[in-house]
């Protein structure tokens, strides 16, 4: 059976998301309280559109929220998103709720309130821009755990300040570890007394967006 997704609010984001969910064989229903937006979205094939306030229980009922596998709240307002997700959890027993949050300070609070995934647009965009700006020092970058943890590949060039140093001599941020060193054809799991050589490729695992600070420390770029 096709999985069902409900997207509440958002216009451009909702369109992009519906398109990609449809490709992944989802049954998509969008709820939007702007009539013009609804008309535009109705042009997407295979999307059911409901014009109404998604924070109202009867609108969610119209959207058959009780049968939804996932509900995604994308409105502009944090409070609306919170209410949408809580209604879906408590009243309609939706197993997975995802909420956009505009105020980064509320991310933790939203998780506390039982929302399964909280995406902070401001933080996410700022992080991506920051990472792009430092992309020179990185060859591959994989965010995991909603971007809270990242795995980055950092090449060590001949001019890097850490060459010849042992790992424990390097002043890395606490939230960062060097998980692996790729040296030529070999890959090794480093220990505290492993020395870094020119030409090494380091695989960094970092949380709390500490990768930029770590890369600065390792490559000397600022």
């Amino acid at each position, binding site marked *: 059976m096709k999985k069902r997704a409900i997207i509440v609010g958002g216009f451009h984001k909702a369109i992009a998301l519906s398109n990609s969910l449809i490709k992944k064989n989802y049954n998509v229903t969008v709820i939007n309280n702007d009539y013009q937006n609804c008309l535009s979205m109705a042009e997407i094939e295979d999307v059911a559109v409901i014009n109404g306030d998604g*924070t*109202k*229980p*009867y609108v969610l009922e119209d959207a058959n929220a009780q049968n939804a596998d996932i509900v995604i709240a994308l409105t502009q*307002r*944090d*409070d*609306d998103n*919170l*209410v949408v997700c*809580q*209604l879906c959890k*408590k*009243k309609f027993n939706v197993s997975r709720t995802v909420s956009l949050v505009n*105020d980064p*300070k*509320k991310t933790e*609070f939203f998780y*506390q*309130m039982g929302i399964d995934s909280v995406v902070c647009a401001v933080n996410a965009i700022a992080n991506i821009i920051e990472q792009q700006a430092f992309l020179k020092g990185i060859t591959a970058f994989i965010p995991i755990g909603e971007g809270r943890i990242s795995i980055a590949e950092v090449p060590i060039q001949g001019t890097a300040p850490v060459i010849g140093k042992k790992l424990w001599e390097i002043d890395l941020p606490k939230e960062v570890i060097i998980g692996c060193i790729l040296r030529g054809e070999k890959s090794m799991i480093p220990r505290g007394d492993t020395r870094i050589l020119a030409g090494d490729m380091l695989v960094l695992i970092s949380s709390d967006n500490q990768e930029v600070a770590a890369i600065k420390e390792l490559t000397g770029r600022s």
Partner: protein
Amino acid sequence: MKYSEVKEKNEFIVIVGCGRLGASLANTLSDEGRDVLIIDKNKDALRKLSMSYGGLALIGDGTDIDMLREAELEKATAIVVVTNNDNTNIMISQMAKNIFNKELVIARLYDPERDYVYREFEIDTISPSILSSNEIWKLLTDDEGR
């Protein structure tokens, strides 16, 4: 916790939203000599407070956690959330409960349909439409008795 129990202590009440209800409540509480702080994001809304209002007034967004900290919600004995948006009231009440561990949280809710969201979080709700309909019902049935 009943309001009468809170009254015993030297209480400090935070009100979010300076509409007609928020302002009149603030005026009454202040006249009775209680410590009150009222928050509204609109400066003009605070003009609804009476001349004799002796409490504090803060201009800012009550949904902002830092703003609530600035309002010293930690020290408050009760918080009354009466903005004109139900969802805002729900969110602020839940923040007061969960981040600030407030026991006495009272919120206004225009739409009684969402009541159970509050009930589960032990937030006391006041719904104007239900109160009004009860009152009207009372008047109507009283009339019949005469």
